């Protein structure tokens, strides 16, 4: 639990995202996948004879010295992956627990993933999204890109809800690159926006992971007898007596979550529930381990 308290303290105190993310990545995350190293691969696979038009830089001169013929050295080039990160910036992300809010928690997850991708030389892109505006940072892989990435997260503002229609996504779809999509959200705004999102993700052929972040007090209402709650869009305020309300509330919530899972999960899509009091590192590690087993 000391991990958790340290992380909560640093999240609640407003430490810089870049530093926190780097700390977690340095700490104990294993790679997303076996990434490429810069330059050409170094694992030898085979030789093939030179064809006109090949890049002459790939000619293996040792072989030429031996055989007086031009050969191209081929390596097991591992496929690189573009990581496309989605951060929900809707009003419901402002829900706060333990001194920090859900958006901050999600930001940290996103920042960690971005940092990891950068470490491994993969390109990554970021979408910060709600129905008012959808910010896009196009893919890149250099350090300047990483810094822009951090700045974009830190300056984001939460409002509105997840966009109902996925039109904003279309320009980012390119069937060329193999992409890995990760979505950090609470996914509480209703089923339909998410169903259409999943469909669009399917069109792009990308593997999609949903990280649904919820607070402990959201799942079970807190201990106090009376509460005054307001909805995320600030339109209503209600006074509730938690004991009387709890059962029905939890039933409703569970029903929604089950249905969400059913509609969203598929061969290429996974949905994981992350509680806000789990340390970010631990949560990600579990998810990644599971992914690597597949």
């Amino acid at each position, binding site marked *: 639990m000391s991990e958790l308290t340290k992380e909560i303290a640093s999240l609640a105190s407003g430490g810089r995202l870049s530093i926190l993310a780097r700390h977690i990545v340095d700490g104990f995350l294993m790679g997303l996948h076996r990434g490429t190293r810069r330059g050409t691969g170094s694992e030898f696979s085979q030789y093939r004879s030179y064809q006109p038009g090949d890049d002459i830089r790939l000619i293996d001169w040792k072989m030429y010295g031996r055989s007086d013929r031009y050969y191209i050295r081929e390596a097991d080039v591992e496929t690189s992956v573009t990581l496309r990160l989605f951060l929900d910036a809707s009003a419901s992300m402002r829900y706060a627990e333990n001194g920090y809010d859900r958006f901050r928690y999600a930001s940290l997850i996103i920042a960690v993933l971005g940092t990891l991708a950068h470490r491994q030389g993969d390109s990554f892109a970021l979408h910060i999204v709600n129905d008012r505006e959808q910010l896009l940072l196009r893919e890149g892989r250099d350090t300047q890109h990483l810094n822009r990435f951090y700045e974009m997260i830190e300056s984001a503002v939460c409002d509105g809800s997840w966009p109902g229609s996925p039109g904003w996504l279309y320009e980012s779809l390119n069937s060329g690159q193999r992409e890995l999509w990760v979505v950090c959200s609470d996914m509480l705004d209703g089923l339909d926006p998410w169903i259409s999102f999943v469909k669009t993700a399917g069109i792009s052929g990308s593997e999609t992971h949903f990280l649904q972040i919820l607070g402990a007090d959201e799942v079970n209402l807190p201990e106090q007898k009376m509460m005054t709650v307001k909805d995320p869009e600030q339109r209503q305020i209600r006074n509730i007596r938690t004991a009387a*309300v709890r059962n029905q509330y939890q039933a409703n*919530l569970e029903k*929604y979550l089950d249905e969400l899972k059913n509609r969203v999960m598929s061969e290429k899509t996974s949905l994981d529930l992350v509680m806000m009091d789990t340390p970010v590192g631990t949560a990600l590690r579990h998810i990644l381990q599971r992914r690597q087993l597949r």
Partner: protein
Amino acid sequence: MILISPAWLWLLAAAAVPVAVHLLNRKQGKPVLLGTFRFLPEQTFAKARKFELHETFLLIVRIAMICILVLLLAGVMIPAEQEGVQTVMITETEESENPEKTDTGVVEIRVSPQEVDETGWWNLVKQADIDYQPDAIHVAGELTQARFTAGRPAMRAEVMWEHREETEGEIISRVWQSPEGVYSAWFQQRDSTGVRHHIREIPAPEILGDSLAAAGTDTVAYAGILRAVINTDAPEPAAAGLEFATRYWNMDSGSNDEQEQPGELMKISAGEKETVLESIIKPDGTTDFTGANSQAIMEMNITGLDTTAGEGQIILRSGKYRVPVMWRSGDGNFRVNGEIEESMEAWFFAGAGHRVIRESLGTVPALSPSMPEEQLRTERTSQGRAAEIVAGKPAGGRLFLCLLALWALERLLAPRRGM
């Protein structure tokens, strides 16, 4: 549990405030943003009871905070644990020994007749009261009027006298007449608590000429006019004090300019006899009427009195409390030793004037006007309370720490509970 100022206890009524806040606050919590708002069911349950009290622990903490604050303001003290000397027994014997302490909380003090002569009974008793703080003091000795000197001071302990001579009734010590023909007499009444003196008007007694004479064994009459003249140049406290003394004696007092001489404070004429209270000479040789706030010895010259009957010093034995005292020194002057506060100045002059008047009448220097009984009682209790407060330990420190701890607890709990 002692309180320095119990008046603050009325503020305990403020403990009702958190109760009211808790009762009224049931609806207005700070609104918490809940992302899962739409999953809350429609409210179809019965309404909350009107006076439901939630967060009882927080309420108790807040009430405790107010109580401790009030106690702090009232100044709680833990009474000091005293070993409790209950009784001091003062016996007059031939040999004087050191005080012994017996196991049962009784202290015996033996005094010799010379000590009694030198110090005076009341001073001994007062010293014992200060030293041991007992509940009662028993005094056994040959109590004659001659040894019954000095003023009766206020004391905490009950004083019980066991004396051989049980005289009851009143004794008239002196009688005099004012110019209007009103006679006043000085009465002494002895009871178990000591001798009480008062002066009151009497119908015309038997007058024996105009000289001081004693008629009978316990009635003395003096006929003549007792008059005092106070110098107009005397400074205010001196004049006020001397005038008080003259009023007490029902004297005719006036400010006569023709008999003024520089340096005279007051002149008393009793028949043919004249007594003059003169100015004060400070140790540095300057002449001043007043010796307020001085730590040096003040001298007042008195002329016209029979100086052969001078007595020794009357001082308190060295105890914790230094009291300025006045005494007749060997050369017949009054001496005052110690600090005199400004507010006490007039009283000192009253005392000096009183003494001079008494001595001019030829009376035995005896008790100063006694305090009325009620005043003595209050004095006793307030001295007792004062002693307790001085000896007690303030409990304020511990209370303050409790208050801090409770405040921290309240601040921790309140936001969590949305109150």
